[in-house]
């Protein structure tokens, strides 16, 4: 886009690249480097730019001594269940919005989408007594249901945008052959919609995996706690701060979501920016 043949243009371009790039990547570099430093090297007023004696002690301790594996397992269970639930709900709703013309369709869809703007913290004020009444406080199903809040509106919209591009002829032809709408959806539409479905699943999984607020409030017992509050309570509390452990545990907790994201990022970006950009 820019013409970088002149020396001046090159300098401006690469200076900007260096400044923003440093801001973006240095914290990640520092996370990795710090997790590999033994405590003797970590707690130094003038830090070393890279570990002189790389050590895996923080990783080993995080995986064997603490409760991190338990928190990870809890997060895996709640995030997988809530992502599956959201994807399922959004799948049918998105298809309904895209391919049927009933009274109130557009207002209902806009209203659902605008719910993205209801502050999660405010909803929590009433979700808390609601869960308490249904005896779902401090339970995994309660947390899973609450996580619908985060991703359902956007997921529905993402799938809706995709389904509008599925040609009507495809559906009409199958209808002419006598297939029922549900059958058409399950055997024709869903198989050609795997990328957006995976995107939506990952999107809602990410919200649940990364959550702190809801888990911290709705889960009380340690054995059901997820990684967000789990990390916070384990590594930085009033008594001690274990930064090396915090860095290693952070990397472990980020690994699954980063791996999934790296494989699927192309679909992911398309899905999330769909609707906003022509």
């Amino acid at each position: 886009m820019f013409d970088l043949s002149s020396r001046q243009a090159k300098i401006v371009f690469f200076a900007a690249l260096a400044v923003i790039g440093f801001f973006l990547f240095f914290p990640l570099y520092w996370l990795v480097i710090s997790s590999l430093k033994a405590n003797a090297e970590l707690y130094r007023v003038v830090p070393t730019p890279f570990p002189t004696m790389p050590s895996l002690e923080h990783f080993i301790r995080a995986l064997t001594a603490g409760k991190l594996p338990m928190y990870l397992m809890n997060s895996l269970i709640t995030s997988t269940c809530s992502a599956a639930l959201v994807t399922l709900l959004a799948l049918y709703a998105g298809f309904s919005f895209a391919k049927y013309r009933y009274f109130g369709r557009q207002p209902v869809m806009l209203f659902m989408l605008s719910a993205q703007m209801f502050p999660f913290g405010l909803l929590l004020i009433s979700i808390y007594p609601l869960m308490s009444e249904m005896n779902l406080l401090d339970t995994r199903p309660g947390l899973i249901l609450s996580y619908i809040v985060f991703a359902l509106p956007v997921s529905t919209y993402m799938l809706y945008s995709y389904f509008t591009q599925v040609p009507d002829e495809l559906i009409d032809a199958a209808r002419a052959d006598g297939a029922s709408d549900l059958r058409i959806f399950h055997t024709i539409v869903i198989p050609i919609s795997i990328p957006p479905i995976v995107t939506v699943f990952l999107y809602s999984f990410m919200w649940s995996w990364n959550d702190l607020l809801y888990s911290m409030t709705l889960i009380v017992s340690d054995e059901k706690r997820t990684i967000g509050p789990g990390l916070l309570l384990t590594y930085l509390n009033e008594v001690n701060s274990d930064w090396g452990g915090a860095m290693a545990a952070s990397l472990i907790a980020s690994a699954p979501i980063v791996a999934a994201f790296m494989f699927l990022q192309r679909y992911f970006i398309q899905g999330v920016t769909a609707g906003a950009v022509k």
Partner: protein
Amino acid sequence: MAVIENNVGAYPVSPHANRGGLKAGQNRIGLLLLLPAAVAFAAVILYPFLSALGLSLFEYTVEMMEPRFIGFENFYKIASDPDVWAAFWTTAIYVALTTTGTLAAGLGWALIMNQPFAGRAVLRSMSLLPWVLPSTVSAFIWGWIFNSRYGVLNAFLMELGLIDYPQAWLSTPEGAMLAVVLTKIWLSIPLFMSFFLAGLQNLDKEQIDAARVDGAGNWAVLRDHILPHLRPVLMIVVVLGVIGNLQQFDTIYALTGGGPVRATTVLSVEVYRRAFEQWDIGFASAVGVLWVAALLPPAFLYLRMLVKGN
């Protein structure tokens, strides 16, 4: 791409608007498909939202069995509560700084990532990482950088001679605000960049080449072609950014807990503390109602853009 068709009237606007079946039986199936999501939506989003709005008119604290209706009393209390006003002010500063900061850095980074150079693809993928990290992890990273005793920021600034002795960043109001703002900018750059990159994809390159032939330099191309082209995306990004920043809770709570004292207590933290630390549900809901009011203008703009399909 995804445009919400405007076909509420009797005469469809576009020839495609009414395709996809209009028969009564089929529409019943459409409603049936919507039902599960609608029920879930009503139960965990709509009902809690309305209920919280309603609770703002009640006195409801931890000692009470049942909420007691008190009309607008919570709002009168808010009017004379300097802490709530301070939270509004803090939120305004936080939202202004994070939104402008992310806008500048995100746009700059998108323009850089749009330029072909060796290693760009890898850099582009990697620059999405901050966005997918758990919020506690982001808070850990920045808390460690800003650490008063062993933080790399202090070491770096002392090396450059900008400060003479280590600063306790997170213990000063300005330092804590700087930390939460930088954290949020850092984790929002990927999303902003993605939006801008998507917008840059369909930029008319021939138009730019023609301008270059006419002697336009890089700045002229940026000012006269690229930025005007990105205007609709810019609007969306600003509105979504404001909405997201107004709601930010996790990284602030994990990094500073709203402190020192109340220096980084934005509305989300204020509502959380009133509701789940002081268990003053009615008052917290009333603050939440004002919070929603602050969200309405950007929310309205966002919906309008969606309906218009840009």
